[in-house]
């Protein structure tokens, strides 16, 4: 082997050094994803929903870590169906109301709650009890109409390259995804990743082109500031609409990583998270960590 001269050594050293320089960036990115506050999932057990919410938010760093007074907050609960709170097809109205009230107390003038309902919106809003809860708490609830969407590119998506997404979901300082956990005939389970189907105009396209991939694709673009899963009661049969059999885990699941949150919540249904294709795809796409052995799940009781 020929002896390396100084010039060659310097070249190789520069190249190697720059590689080393590249690596830290990637590993930092990964490190950020594995930092405690992103991958950990807070599970708050109890029955007093406003207190559970308060505790969860406190552990997540308080409202001030999500928005500063005066900023715009958008909540996306699941209000898809004309169904009563007891039937468990929609997010618990007490939770939505408490969250709107808490956001207002933290300085948001008028938290926005929006949904592209499945049942006629008026019925869904009224029967779910959410219309009343939001009104009482001082938020603004509205049904998404054609004019409320904006066509958006999803460059990192595999199938869903373009989607009409609710403008209020796109443009807000703090986006709170507030799904209800329940079984779903088409997708297996619906938790936080799938909840975004209520914030787009054309859901049918997702089904036609590949539901699970589209669900994962959407989260390449929309990253909520906070996820609060309503698992106070979960619909275990006849989902997503019900009426069906209910179970009562009495939990709220808090997190920033949608894949981790969904993976944990899937276990409430005695399901392996990776048996739900979209959780697996989202994990593989690096949208979060669905491997529960690597997720820091912390339980609290109030």
């Amino acid at each position: 082997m020929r002896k390396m001269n100084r010039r060659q050594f310097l070249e190789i050293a520069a190249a190697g050094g720059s590689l080393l320089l590249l690596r830290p960036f990637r590993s930092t990115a990964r490190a950020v994803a594995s930092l405690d506050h992103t991958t950990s999932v807070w599970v708050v057990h109890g029955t007093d929903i406003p207190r559970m919410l308060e505790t969860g938010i406190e552990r997540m760093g308080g409202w001030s870590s999500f928005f500063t007074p005066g900023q715009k907050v958008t909540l996306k609960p699941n209000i898809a169906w004309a169904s009563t709170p007891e039937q468990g097809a929609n997010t618990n109205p007490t939770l939505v109301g408490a969250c709107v009230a808490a956001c207002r107390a933290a300085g948001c003038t008028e938290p926005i709650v929006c949904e592209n309902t499945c049942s006629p919106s008026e019925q869904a809003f009224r029967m779910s009890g959410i219309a009343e809860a939001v009104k009482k708490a001082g938020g603004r609830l509205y049904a998404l109409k054609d004019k409320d969407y904006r066509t958006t590119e999803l460059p990192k998506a595999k199938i869903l390259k373009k989607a009409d997404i609710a403008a209020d979901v796109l443009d807000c300082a703090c986006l709170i995804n507030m799904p209800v956990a329940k079984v779903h005939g088409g997708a297996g389970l619906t938790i936080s990743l799938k909840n975004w189907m209520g914030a787009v105009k054309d859901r049918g396209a997702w089904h036609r082109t590949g539901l699970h991939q589209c669900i994962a694709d959407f989260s390449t673009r929309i990253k909520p500031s906070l996820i609060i899963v309503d698992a106070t009661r979960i619909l275990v049969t006849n989902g997503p609409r019900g009426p069906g059999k209910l179970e009562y885990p009495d939990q709220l699941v808090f997190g920033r990583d949608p894949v981790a949150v969904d993976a944990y919540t899937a276990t409430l249904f005695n399901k392996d998270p990776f048996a739900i294709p979209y959780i697996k795809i989202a994990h593989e796409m690096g949208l979060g960590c669905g491997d529960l052995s690597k997720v820091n799940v912390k339980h609290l009781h109030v």
Partner: protein
Amino acid sequence: MTANLEQDGASDAGFALRHAFRRRWIRILVRGSSFTVAVVLAMQILPWRQTAALLPRLSPFLALCSAIAARSASRAFVLTALPVFLLALARGRWFCATLCPTWVLANTASRLRPGARSRFSSWPRFGQVLAVIGLGGAVGGYPLFLWLDPLSLFNGFFSTLPRPATLAALAPASGLILVLLLSLYRPHVWCMRLCPLGATQDFLGQMGRCVKNRMFPRSARDPADPPPPCPAPVVGRRFFLLAIGGFLAAFAVRRFRSVSPSPCIRPPGAVNENLFVGLCTRCGNCLRACRYRILHFDFGSSGLAGLGTPAIQITPGYCNEWCNDCTQVCPVGAIQPLTLEAKRNVAIGTAVVEKSRCIAWRDGQSCMVCQEFCPYNAIRAVESGGANCPVVDDEMCRGCGACESQCPAFPDKAITVRGIQQRAAKPLAV
């Protein structure tokens, strides 16, 4: 003749009433307020939607024909139509210029061209012909000209309003518009010569006079008076021939079947199809009542006999499980009133999955949107090719079309609802 009658009745309240009616302002007040009420009722803007049925229910023409065709009469209908019926026996056409909103419009249109010669008196009394043929048809189960009732025509105009102004949506309104155009062309011809409700009142008036003359012969009271000229016999040979013609026509009309393979989906509570197409007055009350805009004027998919009847077209809406509005407004009972509970348990159709179009059955996609949207849990999932695939539970399915309205299969829906003879569905669990 009329003058005589007026002198006879000088002492009774009817005369006083008519005397008052000679004053212009009273006339305007009565007609104006009854017209306003008619518009308000037809628009269905009152919280009591059922009141939309009140106006057409005043018509003795509709009452007679539909009661004969259905072989039964609802108490509500008898109670509303009976006063008009009795007053027509005593006074003939009192209803027209007092309460009929179509008269107000036709009369206004007629006066717009004062120069136009009416010449209606030279026209034969087509209205009577229509009314008698209609009665004959009613005996055969299909009253032929219910849709010409002026009160149905009036309500039909308003059924169009909440819809986008397409040609099909305008169809129910065309009746009243044609009446107005006709009145511009030949003033007063509609009311005096064509309207079957007016003709029915003429008949009743004639009948009343005949009875009166027979019971209280003028000669008995004043022997000096010559016997009154007896009006033409109400029920003569011509009457019978026309009625028999109507009876036969009722069967002939129903022979023109539709070309479409699957029967129409009728609004919940509709009576059986054969009677439904006959009873329906095409008043459009149900079309107007339908919040989800799925009831449409049928252009022949239920045959000639069903032309203009209401039929459900699913997309984009469906027959919502929390709505029974259309069942509350039918004046003739072609759609029976259903409670919300009863409506939720009646099957108006049944959903059918076409596997060759279904993205789950055909492509193995995760979908089940039909099951997701089904309000009655009537769709089961079976595993096939690694994906859940839909199967319809026919006993549970109400044919509401929630599945069809949301099916993502493109361009043709993979799950569609077919009309059936309405029946009770399996009660809901829970």
